[in-house]
């Protein structure tokens, strides 16, 4: 089962490597990972998705909490939440393909952010599943390059992850 963990950690050198190292060391997997500083300069926020059952996620959460650099964490998938991922995709767009790419990207509410005579670069935001669906829809088109940000997310409603 896919789990999304949102982690507040000290914005210090080596903190990220402790989190990533923990996953390698204890044989947990990381599906996606995204990290950036927050409005509080002393903290970074890391969003990580992994595949785990209830027992595994309990152990992952406990082990993460043991890391001194981890200040607070929440499993977003435990409750109502919003998740988004950004994808940039560079496609071969010539001839009839050119209009088709444009149409499909409109259907997915994508934006074309770079254009050459033979290519389009589409920017798309949504759940990981939506991005997968777009890639599927583009299977007839030559995909030259894909880059995805990994999942970011927040709990819905009043709930916040803060100090």
């Amino acid at each position, binding site marked *: 089962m896919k789990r999304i963990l949102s982690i507040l*950690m*000290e914005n210090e050198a*080596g903190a990220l490597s402790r989190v990533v190292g923990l996953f390698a060391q204890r044989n947990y997997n990381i599906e996606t990972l995204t990290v950036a500083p927050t409005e509080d300069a002393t903290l970074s926020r890391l969003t990580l998705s992994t595949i785990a059952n209830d027992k595994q996620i309990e*152990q992952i959460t406990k082990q993460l909490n*043991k890391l*001194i*650099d981890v200040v607070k964490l929440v499993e977003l998938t435990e409750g109502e939440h919003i998740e988004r991922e950004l994808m940039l995709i560079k496609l071969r767009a010539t001839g009839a393909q050119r209009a088709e790419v444009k149409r499909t990207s409109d259907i997915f509410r994508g934006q074309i952010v770079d254009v050459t005579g033979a290519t389009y670069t589409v920017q798309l935001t949504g759940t990981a599943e939506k991005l997968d669906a777009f890639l599927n829809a583009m299977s007839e088109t030559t995909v030259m390059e894909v880059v995805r940000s990994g999942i970011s997310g927040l709990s819905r409603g009043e709930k916040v992850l803060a100090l």
Partner: protein
Amino acid sequence: MEMLSGGDILIRGLQEEGVEYVFGYPGGAVLHIYDALFRQNQIQHILVRHEQAATHMADGYARSTGRPGVVFVTSGPGATNAITGIATAFMDSIPMVVISGQVQSHLIGTDSFQETDMIGVSRPIVKHSFLVKRAEDLPVILKKAFFIATTGRPGPVVVDIPKDITNPTDLVPYVVPGKVSIRSYNPASKGHTGQIKKAVSMLMASERPMIYSGGGVVQGNASDLLRDMTRELEFPITSTLMGLGAYPASDKQFLGMLGMHGTYEANNAMHHCDLILAIGARFDDRVTNSLNKFCPNAKIIHIDVDPASIAKNVDVDVPIVGPVDSVLADMLGQIRVALPKRTDANKTRLKDWWEQIEGWRRQDCLKINKVAGEEKTIKPQEAVKAVYEVTGGSTYVTSDVGQHQMFAALYHPFDEPRKWINSGGLGTMGFGLPAAMGVQIAFPDETVTCITGEGSIQMNIQELSTCAQYGLPVKIININNQSLGMVKQWQDMQYEGRHSHSYMDSLPDFVKLVEAYGHVGFVVRDLDELEPILKEAYALKDKLVFVDIMVDPKEHVYPMHVAPNGSMRDMWLSKGVRT
């Protein structure tokens, strides 16, 4: 304001922490630190012969005293040599602070001479680590390092210091740090009252209870409380390898060690019990045997200061997160209220349970079997028993890893905590001698014995030189079976006796070897020499004595769990005889 160099700040910080001894080895990146050490006389430095031994000495010091061990190593090979000792301390939750030198800040990342990414290399085996970026940060970092190492579930902390930080010509204002607080680190200080209440009512209702005590009781200084509680409850108790001594082994309620080489009665009682009270133990794979067959009828109460230890390997009915001493104190208070209300029916069931246990005890699983013609042969078990008898159980015992370790755990009863010191989690050969030296330094007037084997002792034998330098009169009991006994035992049992590289060929003459270092050595070949020579050895109070005891090389450690796919009660009781 006082102006000090980073090197002097480091030493001052260690003094503030009350550090008496530092175990270490100098080198390029720590020269400034060693110079600062030279210019003071409060902290004594013990110069080892290999950095691994420095970490094990600090470890032995920490295990026997409860105070953190402190280590100095230089960058590169000094730091990497310390890794095995740091990992050993990590696995057994031992408080330790390792100060490693690092190359100068501007050289980091350039593959400079003796450069190793110590923070990276040690990351999976430390509780936490710090890379010092400014000398001004040192006081607070040190304070945090000691705080983290010694609180909650203890463990090793590495402080990596680039050489320029300790430069004697760069002076910075020195401020004594106040109380540290780390916003992301708040170990539990007390168990949950509701959970404790629930646990006590389960204890009162149980018909076949078992107390399963671990190293956390020793490290958490909760032995007295464990004794009181166990005696008042009149419950049977077993202990892990790491927990031996927390409950007196000579007491009738003690069933011996459990697990892979646990006693018949302890393992059977675990398997058949209806309630396990696990205290500071972590359901290690060397305890549980196959998890899906582990104690099928037992409800489990688990007390541990580390929440991640709870429900990691087995599911738990009542988890209690907190320091064992505080939790046991709260629990005992409630037990004392509940005990007078224990029903007669309940008392009868407990009596029946004890009768069943006495039946398993009659198996006498630790009986030493000797056949005709073996009258003079020394069985390794007899060697361990002789040490106990000659010392009257008064000695600290450290061990290395292998058969001799299990024989020591099974045949030398420990009645007090912190007297039995061994590498349980990591299983580090070479641990025994330096650990014994650390104990001897902490307790110069006590008898300290290292029970080892001819394989393990050679992994840190260079420390005989350190012993000579500091006059450490450790007694080394070498259970010499001329083979890597535990490896050989497994090869006998699982590889049709193909002894692939488990022989120790070309053994040195240990007596001559120790004499070369200025120590005393004896060799024992016949059983009737054993006690007289041991008496002579222990009478030489001020000398390191090496007793090389030639034992039966064919002996196996029993009982032994049948594995894989065995339960707690599935055991080999002797060669070819199983439950």
